[in-house]
């Protein structure tokens, strides 16, 4: 087991301009077995400049590992301008002990990321597998697709302890998203597979969905008129109305399911 602690230096985040740092190179896959000195030399982007990790982070390494599975990266300090945490990771674990910037867990296919704060937009973008836990709130486009792509999240599991902003799981095709709080407009927009569970309230969920499943445990505001009531079903002891849709995508394609209390 190798534990790598990376604490962002105060001077990186204290500037007026708040220049973002992109850390897609700091994944368990890339750091496995590397010594402290080697990790310090790994390049990361700070704005439009390529810098060494050691210049932006205090680095400490404990233990060694033979594979990325055995690597845990702990990110400390103010990470609110640190982007692409765990981008593309396939194994191992990352723990981020503050709010994080955009694209956390984007395109990850394995391993686990825990964010002990809020995550900015595009967390879990085009995620294929693995687990992303956001203990606070998630901003817009959680688990959505990059602009223009026709698939968002395709696998893995995402849990949000707080609320989620607009367009959760846009173009989602697989995997599971659980939001303990509320989801703003258009959760599951254009989704074609996978499962979204919203513990609180939702606005216009399931618009243009063609497959997959959305469950809203709170109240739904502005229910899409293009969903068809199929009957009722009991989930975990509670009665839900079961709808199919979205019929706006034509009856042939409307194979999505929406459960509403």
């Amino acid at each position: 087991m190798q534990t790598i602690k990376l604490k962002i230096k105060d001077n990186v985040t204290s500037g007026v301009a708040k220049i973002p740092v992109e850390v897609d190179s700091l994944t368990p896959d890339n750091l496995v077995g590397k010594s402290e000195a080697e990790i310090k030399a790994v390049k990361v982007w700070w704005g439009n400049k390529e810098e060494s990790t050691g210049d932006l982070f205090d680095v400490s390494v404990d233990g060694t590992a033979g594979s990325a599975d055995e690597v845990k990266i702990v990110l400390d300090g103010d990470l609110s301008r640190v982007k692409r945490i765990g981008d593309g990771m396939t194994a191992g674990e990352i723990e981020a002990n503050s709010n994080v910037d955009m694209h956390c867990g984007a395109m990850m296919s394995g391993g686990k990321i825990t964010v002990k704060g809020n995550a900015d937009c595009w967390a879990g973008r085009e995620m294929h597998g693995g687990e992303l836990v956001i203990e606070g709130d998630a901003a817009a486009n959680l688990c959505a697709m990059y602009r223009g792509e026709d698939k968002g999240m395709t696998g893995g599991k995402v849990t949000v302890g707080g609320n989620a902003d607009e367009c959760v799981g846009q173009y989602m095709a697989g995997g599971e998203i659980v939001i303990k709080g509320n989801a703003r407009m258009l959760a599951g927009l254009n989704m074609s597979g996978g499962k979204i569970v919203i513990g609180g309230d939702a606005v216009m969920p399931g618009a243009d969905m063609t497959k997959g499943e959305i469950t809203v445990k709170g109240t739904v505001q502005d229910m899409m008129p293009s969903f068809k009531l199929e009957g009722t079903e009991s989930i975990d002891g509670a009665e839900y109305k079961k709808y199919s849709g979205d019929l706006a995508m034509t009856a042939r394609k409307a194979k999505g399911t929406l459960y509403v209390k």
Partner: protein
Amino acid sequence: MAEVLIRNGVVYDPLNGVKGEKKDICIRDGKVVESVKNPKVIDAEGRVVMPGGVDIHSHIAGGKVNSGRLFRPEDGRKGLEAKTKVCRMQSGYSVPNTFAIGYRYAKMGYTFVMEAAMPPLAARHTHEEMVDIPILDNAALPLIDNNWMTMEYVNSGDMDLLAAYVAWIMKATKGFGVKIVNPGGTEMWGWGKNCSLNDTVPTFDVTPAEIIKGLGVANEKLDMPHSIHVHTNMLGHPGNFEITKETYDLVKGIKTSKDRQVMHTTHTQFHSYGGTNWGDFESKADAIAGYINQNDHATIDIGSIILGDTTTMTADGPMEYNLYQITGRKWTNHDVELETGSGITPFLYSGKSPVNTIQWAIGVELALLVKDPWKIALTTDHPNAGPFIGYPILISMLMSKKRREESSADMHKVIYDRALLPSIDREYDLNEIAIITRGMTAKALGLHEHGKGHLGVGADGDVAIYDMSPEETDAGKIQKAFLNTKYTIKDGQVVVKDGEVVATPDGKTYFVTPECDDKLTDEMMVKLKDKFDHYYSVTYNNYAVQDAYVPNPYEIKTQMRG
């Protein structure tokens, strides 16, 4: 005096009858010369040397291309490359940014590319983008067929006035030749319809056949370097091969003073379809190739499929709508006032699909079945059948039956029943490859008279040196060599070395200025100004592309014949 000597290469220069001879090429001040005194020497020992490639049909600049980029940010993600000391940043695969277009073509040894569809009203935009494309010489073909002025003159039968209008459009747009796209069909699309070759376009009481013939006559009256360049009606419809053949027949009687075809039909793969629907869809490449083999007035380019995702874009609005209906993917449509229209939609060519498999076979079949390579050009109708970066794949398939067999084995099994490819043994040699990628294309465009597509004395010093022996038979190595040259030399300057871009000079823009009788022009102008006064969203005075938009001009003057 900048001099270059390319020593000991095996030269393929088909326009000068050089078929793989060990030969030196001398360049002084950007032009090929007999001899040089104190040159920079480039050692091409045993390597394949060809004139710079000339692409006869590709969509590289203008409104459609740029809309394609805006509309497909996900395509921009592919092919990302950071800037270097020489190159600016690159993005995109099927719709690369302007810089990437220049660099990637140059790396394949191309030095001239024809933008194949310029809406006259968007000519300024097209030129702005062409200025931004590094290295490549270029030109653009204005769309003139679904134009109200054209249709009115075709209807009234005033061929001289039609020629005067075509002359004016060439000058106003700094265009190179007459482009025809689904004649009548794009006008009908304005009314939600499409039409075939002999249907009447009710708004102007003309048929597509009459439009093609009329523009064919006008083109030859103006002595244009290129023939009419035609995207025939009913693109992509099963059974359209009959319409394609009928289109060739239309212009059979038209005389030209030039040593070239009177009609070039483009992306012919999309127009060589048999069957009555997608269920019994089959290849009719043999019927089209048979016609081309028997007749000398028409040439074609293949528009061969490159498997994978691409962005289709054409002035054939109804066709794009049909495609969108099939895929359900995103689609955008544009109407260009009195002139033309366009549509864009992404498309995935899959080897698992029986239809795509047959389409994939047809392009290659056409190239193999047309016996005379001087009648056929290599294209992918970039990006419609696939991005131009796929040319090396096509070259390797044409040169290797083994490669075709291997590729066919990965395709849908329908290829063995409804395509001809598996039964064809022919393999291209390097001389034939040089013909279909530079010699024929330069000649069909009339650019061989202006130094393109050959290495004779006086020609442009545009040379591609491929890192392969002329005896190479391994398809993989051939493909690799044609993707990244050892050297690409443009006007005597090394622009690519060992597959890397090392210099990015500006290219020239070729355009034709046909002159005609003032009285004729004055008469035409009355009708034209009326169109501007009543229908155009811009005024006559603001329409023409100013000289400033063509900073590196190459003007070709012609005179209308009586």
